C-alpha cells in the first residue's frame, strides 16, 4: 500500500513522525516533488481564492501525488498542551477536498495533543482500523513515529540543513526492506562533537551553512517553517541570504529558550507556531550578535498579522534592523532582491559606522558609539 503525503504545510514540521509511523506499519509513504511552477499554478486554480499561499501550495501538491492508494490529509488541531495550530490547519481536509482528484480516497485523522497522549492514540487506532491494523501495532508505530520525530528535532541547531535531514527521512520512509530502524541522521550534538574532536565531516557540496569567518553578517530569518524552507515560493530567500550572511532560524532555537523568551507577554499566545516564532524572534532581538531580523510572512496570514507586530516592537526596543517580507504568488524576484540587498547594505554600513566591536574583544573601536 502507498500513501501520498503532500510536501507542504505540516510536511515541514511533522513529516518525520508520520514517516516513522507508516514505516512501522509497512506502508510506503510517497511525497510529492519539490514545488515547481506547475504545482503552484494547479494549486492557485483549485484552492479558495481567499486563503493563504501555503494552503494554495498544499492544494497543488495534492494534485501532484501520482500512483498512490490514499492521500493523507490529517487534521492537526494541536501539537502540545495549551496551544492550537492555525485555524486554517483545522479546516483541513474539508477545505482542500476540491483539490483532490476525483475518485482518490482521502485518509484523515484528527490529532489533538491538548487532550493528551491517550486521546491521540485512540484517534490513531481509528485511523489504523481503516488501514486494517490492530491496536498493538498502532501503539508500536506511534512510538516509532515519536522516535523519528525526536531524532529529526535533534538535528536542528547550528549548521542544520533542512533538505539534508528531511531527505534522509524520506529515503528511510520509502525503503521498506530495511529493518525498521530510525534513519541515520547526524544530530547537531554529534556534529558539534565531531567538530570538537576535529574529525572532518563529509564536506557538503552546498554552501557552508555556518561560515566561521567572523566578519560575516549574522541575520535571523523568522517565520513559519513552511515559508522559510519552501524555496520555490520564497524565491530561494534562504539560499540568497546564506550567500551573504550566517542565518539564524526559528528552528535553531530550542523549546526551553522559546519558553523563557515568552515572558513579558501579558497573555499567552495560543498558536503553537506563533509561540515559537515570537519566542525565537524575541531571543534574536535581544541577542547582540544577531545584526538584523527578517520576518518572512505571506499575504493573508492571520496569526502573523499580530505576531509580526509583536516581534517588530521587540526589535525596535533593541534598535535592531528589522524588515518584513510578504510573499504572495508573484514570481518576480526583483522586488525581493532589492529589499534584501538594501537590508544587508543597511546592516553592513551600520556596522562600519558604529565601529563593530568584536565579541572577542580584539579590536575595540575608540569611535564606537553605542546606540
Amino acid at each position, binding site marked *: 500500500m502507498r500513501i501520498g503525503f503532500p510536501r507542504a504545510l505540516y510536511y515541514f514540521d511533522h513529516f518525520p513522525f508520520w514517516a516513522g509511523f507508516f514505516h512501522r506499519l509497512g506502508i510506503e509513504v510517497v511525497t510529492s*516533488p519539490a514545488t515547481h511552477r506547475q504545482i503552484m499554478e494547479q494549486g492557485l486554480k483549485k484552492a479558495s481564492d481567499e486563503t493563504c499561499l501555503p494552503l494554495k501550495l498544499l492544494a497543488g501538491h495534492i494534485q501532484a501525488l501520482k500512483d498512490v492508494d490514499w492521500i493523507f490529509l490529517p487534521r492537526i488541531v494541536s501539537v502540545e498542551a495549551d496551544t492550537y495550530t492555525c485555524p486554517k490547519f483545522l479546516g483541513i481536509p474539508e477545505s482542500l477536498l476540491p483539490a483532490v482528484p476525483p475518485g482518490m480516497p482521502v485518509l484523515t485523522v484528527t490529532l489533538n495533543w491538548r487532550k493528551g497522549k491517550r486521546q491521540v492514540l485512540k484517534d490513531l487506532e481509528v485511523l489504523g482500523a481503516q488501514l486494517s491494523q490492530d491496536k498493538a501495532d498502532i501503539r508500536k508505530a506511534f512510538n516509532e513515529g515519536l522516535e523519528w520525530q525526536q531524532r529529526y528535532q535533534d538535528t536542528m541547531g547550528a549548521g542544520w540543513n533542512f533538505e539534508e535531514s528531511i531527505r534522509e527521512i524520506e529515503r528511510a520512509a520509502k525503503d521498506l526492506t530495511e529493518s525498521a530502524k530510525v534513519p541515520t541522521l547526524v544530530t547537531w550534538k554529534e556534529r558539534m562533537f565531531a567538530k570538537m574532536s576535529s574529525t572532518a565531516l563529509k564536506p557538503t557540496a552546498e554552501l557552508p551553512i555556518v561560515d566561521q569567518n567572523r566578519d560575516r553578517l549574522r541575520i535571523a530569518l523568522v517565520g513559519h517553517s513552511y515559508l522559510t524552507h519552501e524555496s520555490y515560493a520564497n524565491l530561494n530567500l534562504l539560499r540568497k541570504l546564506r550567500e551573504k550572511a550566517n542565518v539564524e532560524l526559528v528552528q535553531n532555537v530550542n523549546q526551553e529558550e522559546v519558553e523563557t523568551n515568552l515572558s513579558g507577554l501579558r497573555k499567552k499566545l495560543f498558536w503553537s507556531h506563533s509561540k515559537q516564532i515570537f519566542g525565537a524572534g524575541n531571543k534574536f532581538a535581544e541577542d547582540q550578535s544577531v545584526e538584523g531580523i527578517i520576518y518572512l510572512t505571506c499575504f493573508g496570514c492571520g496569526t502573523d498579522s499580530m505576531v509580526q507586530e509583536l516581534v517588530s516592537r521587540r526589535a525596535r526596543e533593541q534598535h535592531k534592523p528589522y524588515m518584513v517580507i510578504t510573499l504572495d504568488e508573484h514570481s518576480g524576484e526583483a522586488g525581493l532582491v*532589492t529589499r534584501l*540587498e*538594501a537590508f544587508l*547594505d*543597511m546592516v553592513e*554600513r551600520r556596522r562600519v559606522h558604529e565601529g563593530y566591536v568584536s565579541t572577542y574583544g580584539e579590536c575595540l573601536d575608540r569611535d564606537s558609539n553605542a546606540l
Partner: protein
Amino acid sequence: MLVDDKYFLGVDVGSVSTNMVLLRPDNTVKEALYLRTQGRPMQIIQEGIKLLRSKIGKSAEIMGVGATGSARQLAATLLGADVVKNEITAHAVAASRVNPQVQTILEIGGQDSKIIILRDGVVSDFAMNTVCAAGTGSFLDQQASRLGIKIEEFGPLALEAKNPVRIAGRCSVFAESDMIHKQQLGHSLPDILAGLCQAMVRNYLNNVGKNKDIKGPIFFQGGVAANPGICKAFEEELGQPIIVPENYDVMGALGAAYLAQEKVGSRPGTRTQFRGLDLGETHFLAKSFDCTGCANRCEVVEITQDGRSLARWGDRCGKWSVAGVADTAISGLEQKEEQQGA
C-alpha cells in the same frame, strides 16, 4: 584633454522613468536626463547615452559608472557598470551627500514608494510599499487623466483648494469611487484634487511610514515631488517643512554616480568597465526562451551585442547565468538546451 572633461555616470532605470546623471569630479552635476522608460529600457538607455554624447562631445571621459533601479542588472550589462546598487542605498547616498543632516527621505516614484530613515548619514531603517500601488505616481497619473487635466496642472490646482474634501485613501479602487461621489455632489475640482493629495499622503504614512521615526530635515524626492499639492499635504500631516532637493527627480541616478565615484576612487589605478560613449550605435538584442530542463520552465533572458552573448538571467538554478558569458549566442543556445534538457 580638459580637466573638467571627466565625469562619473549614474543611471537609474525605473519602471516609469530612466534617469542619467553626469557628475563632475568636484561633485557638481553637469547633466541630468529624465526620460520615460515606456517599457523599452534597452532602447532608452541607448538613446540616453546618445543624448549625453551629443551634449558633452566625444572627447569626454567617463571615469566610472553606477547603475540602480529595478532594471539595474540590464543597465549594468549594457553599460558595463562598475557598481550596481539597489535604489534604497542609492537614494540615501544622494540625499546625504546633498545634505549630510538629512534624517528622513520620502520617495515616491512611478510604481513604488519608499521611506528611508537616516541617522548620522547612515540608513537605519527603510520600508517599501507592498503589492498595492495606491500611493504612487501611477495612481495620480490615472486620476489626472480621468479628471481630464494634465499631471503638471495637478499640483498647482490642488493648492487653490479652499475646503479639501475627504477621500478614502486606503485603496485606489475605493478612492476612485469616493472621488466620483464627491464630484457628483458638486465639489470643486481643486477641492477634490487637494483631497486626493491628502488621501495619498495619509495612505503613504499609514502604509510605508508606519512605525517610522520621522524627524527633520525631511527630503522629498522622486517624480511625485514635482507636485506641490502633495508637498503641502505632507507638511500639514507631519507639521514640519519638507525639502525638495534640486535634482529631486534624478536622485537615484545621482546616488549611483556618487557610488561609482566611491568605488573607483577607493581603488586607484583601476579602470572603469564602461563600454564607451559610442554604445548608442551598437546593436543590442534581448531574447528570451523557456528552459525545458525541469518543470519550473524558467523564462531565461539573453542579452547579445552584435551577436555576442553578454549575459543571461532569469533561471532559478543558475545553469544559464553561470554558463553565461560565452561566445555562443542564442542560436547556439538552442542546441545546448536540447543537450542539457535531454
